[in-house]
């Protein structure tokens, strides 16, 4: 979900080892090391920050709550986790990672140079993942200056391909995140009523999400006249009778995200709103019907687009018809007309239709897993919900 990101992860941060055992990460590092050897590199650096940290979590289970972290994975031997934390924070960091060697850093370029030099890789071949998307250019300039003889190669595409195929434990984690979102939204009809502000209502929903153990959540809303225009971060508008409330929510639990959306009506929905929601729901159904492994991502977007009026389709396309979801709230494949991505088997995706038209707004979405012949929703399917006055 594209939105404003909070200054740190607010929710409970702990490691459910029954759900995501250490062996899962050990197997990933073994696979990573095979890929490193195959690519001819000496090691890979997996970088992530508070917004996009999937690369780091994939190998370590460590998620930066603020700032950034980097995993050093050599072609053989033990990985190292570097985190932008203080020395006193290391014991807490170790409770959520299996990596023995956790090093706090203040300035990444200096400390990374020290690490690579000690590993004898100051002249090595290093693959990097997440640098293009997330590493600040100021840090990159300093890293290159400190390590002038390293041969750098972007290996992001290789890692993205590995991450795209979700293992059963990952799918279960995403399903649990989807259930947290669904359960919280089930309370929305009792919270959305005239006189409350959007922020107060979302605060109550967020309380449910967090009480269920989520470590993060994101909300985009549009209420009243905003519903016909665009989604936005939570604001202080006071709800009134007759308002439409369009709400999208992404929940992260045990590092895995799921996303869904709902359309609520404070009162009886107008025929125009019903029609808009039906069109959006029908577009989502079309997308669900075609989504499967080895299928072109752009064809899924095309299926959604074809079910919509061109003007509404253009607006829905601006939000995006969906993308991969997992350790990042937004990851590959991208579901758009321009996408060249192919959906991997057991890929998890969010399919989404956000429609604005004739002063009305409607949203519907589903987190799904792509099977061989069809996809399977991991959360509840949505409908237009009327809240009696």
């Amino acid at each position: 979900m594209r939105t404003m990101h909070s200054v740190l992860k607010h929710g409970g941060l702990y490691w459910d080892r029954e759900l995501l055992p250490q062996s899962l990460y050990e197997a990933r590092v073994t696979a990573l090391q095979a890929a490193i050897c195959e690519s001819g590199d000496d090691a890979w650096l997996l970088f992530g920050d508070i917004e996009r940290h999937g690369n780091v979590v994939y190998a370590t289970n460590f998620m930066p709550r603020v700032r950034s972290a980097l995993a050093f994975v050599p072609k053989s031997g033990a990985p190292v986790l570097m985190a932008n934390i203080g020395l006193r924070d290391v014991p807490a960091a170790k409770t959520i990672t299996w990596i023995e060697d956790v090093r706090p850093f203040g300035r990444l370029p200096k400390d990374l140079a020290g690490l690579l030099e000690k590993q004898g890789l100051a002249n090595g071949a290093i693959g990097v993942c997440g640098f293009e998307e997330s590493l600040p250019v100021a840090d990159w300039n300093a890293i290159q200056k400190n390590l002038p003889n390293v041969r750098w190669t972007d290996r992001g595409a290789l890692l993205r391909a590995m991450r795209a195929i979700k293992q059963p434990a990952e799918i279960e984690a995403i399903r649990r995140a989807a259930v947290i979102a669904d359960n919280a939204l089930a309370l929305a009809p009792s919270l959305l009523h005239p006189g409350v502000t959007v922020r107060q209502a979302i605060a109550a929903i967020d309380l449910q999400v967090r009480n269920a153990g989520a470590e993060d959540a994101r909300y985009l809303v549009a209420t009243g006249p905003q519903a016909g225009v665009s989604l936005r971060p939570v604001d202080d508008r006071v709800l009134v009778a007759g308002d439409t409330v369009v709400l999208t929510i992404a929940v992260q639990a045990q590092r895995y995200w799921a996303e869904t959306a709902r359309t609520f009506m404070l009162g009886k929905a107008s025929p125009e709103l019903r029609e808009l929601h039906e069109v959006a729901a029908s577009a989502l159904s079309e997308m669900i019907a075609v989504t499967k492994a080895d299928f072109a991502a752009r064809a899924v977007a095309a299926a959604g687009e074809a079910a919509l009026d061109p003007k509404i389709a253009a607006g829905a396309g601006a939000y995006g018809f969906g993308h991969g979801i997992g350790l990042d709230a937004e990851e590959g494949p991208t579901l758009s007309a321009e996408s060249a991505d192919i959906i991997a088997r057991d890929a998890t995706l969010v399919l989404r239709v956000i429609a604005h038209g004739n002063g009305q707004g409607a949203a519907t979405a589903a987190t799904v897993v792509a099977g061989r012949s069809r996809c399977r929703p991991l959360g509840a399917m949505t409908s237009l919900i009327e809240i009696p006055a």
Partner: protein
Amino acid sequence: MVDIASDLQRRVGRVQGAMAQAGIGGLIVFYGAQHNMLRMDPILLLADYRVMGPSALLVPRDGAPKLVLTPTWDLARAREQVKLKDVTAVEEAALAGAIANAAKSLPQSLALVGREVMPLGIARALYRELGGEPMDGGDVVKATANTRTEIEIERISKAAKIADEGFRALTEEARVGMREYELAAILDATMQSHGSEDNFGLMSTGPHNVAIRAVSDRKLEPGDVIVGEITPCYRGYFAQLCRTLILGEPTALQREKYDLLLNAERAGFAAAKPGLPSSGIAKAVNDVIGAAGYGEFCRQPYMRTRGHGLGLGGVVPYDVTEDSSPLLETDMTMVIHPNQYIPETGYMMLGDTVVIEKGGARCLTETEQRLFWKEA
């Protein structure tokens, strides 16, 4: 009170003055969707808008800035809220081209601020589109933003009141058996319902905390010391409150050691006067704690700073340490926190957001400065 449009014009004017002095004709101010308590958001400062994706404000040496933002669907919100006439939105893939295009109308020389947050991929695309790397804008924005305006102080004051509400909820709702993340959720929900947009919130619980950390699934127990760093955000501006709550009556030792923190905070406040160096605050705090025999615990790895600039992200005086050099000025806002690890009691917290005024530091947070406790 000055209206926000006039206030923004003055802020932009100060930056334009600094640009002229630095020989900068046009300035590209980059920021993204990662908002940070310790990093100033220059687009918020100059346009009063919090972006949801990589975006740039283009500031000419004279005249009004232009805002180029992502994603495209956020344009409607921006046009509702931003006071500038020239606001456009593009998809992220087209951002570099749109910035370069908008920069064509800026006078030379062109400078860039925001390299410390600009992702490598966007930087590469931007330099390609511009035909080269613009000069470093350095602190040309930051240096104009040492002090807060009346409107900004009002927002920080509101954030401080929200922090007070958050701590009140924490003291009321904390109970044996609940999980740390449940208590943190109540605190956040309370503050959100009072207008908080965000919270840099940390909390640790236990009989002997070593430091503050992320909340976990630990269940609260009788005798637990709950330390909280509560930092809500109101309309982009932060305030912080640090306090300690004990589930059960404090021991005489806990009371005695917390008095040390109270004395240290008072000493810190007394040292926070315009014209004095911010290092004086750290020295004053450390002197009180050091005199009680805990000097070695005033340093790393136990402690780092005795406060920091706060309000609009990381602003002067930045980290307050014995080595920090900025001179305090009126209308600076900051948090002073003599949080301290003490071997006998563990980590305890006390801290308040203040504004520096002619007569010294004025607390914006109103929660009583004392050791809190409730029956377990």
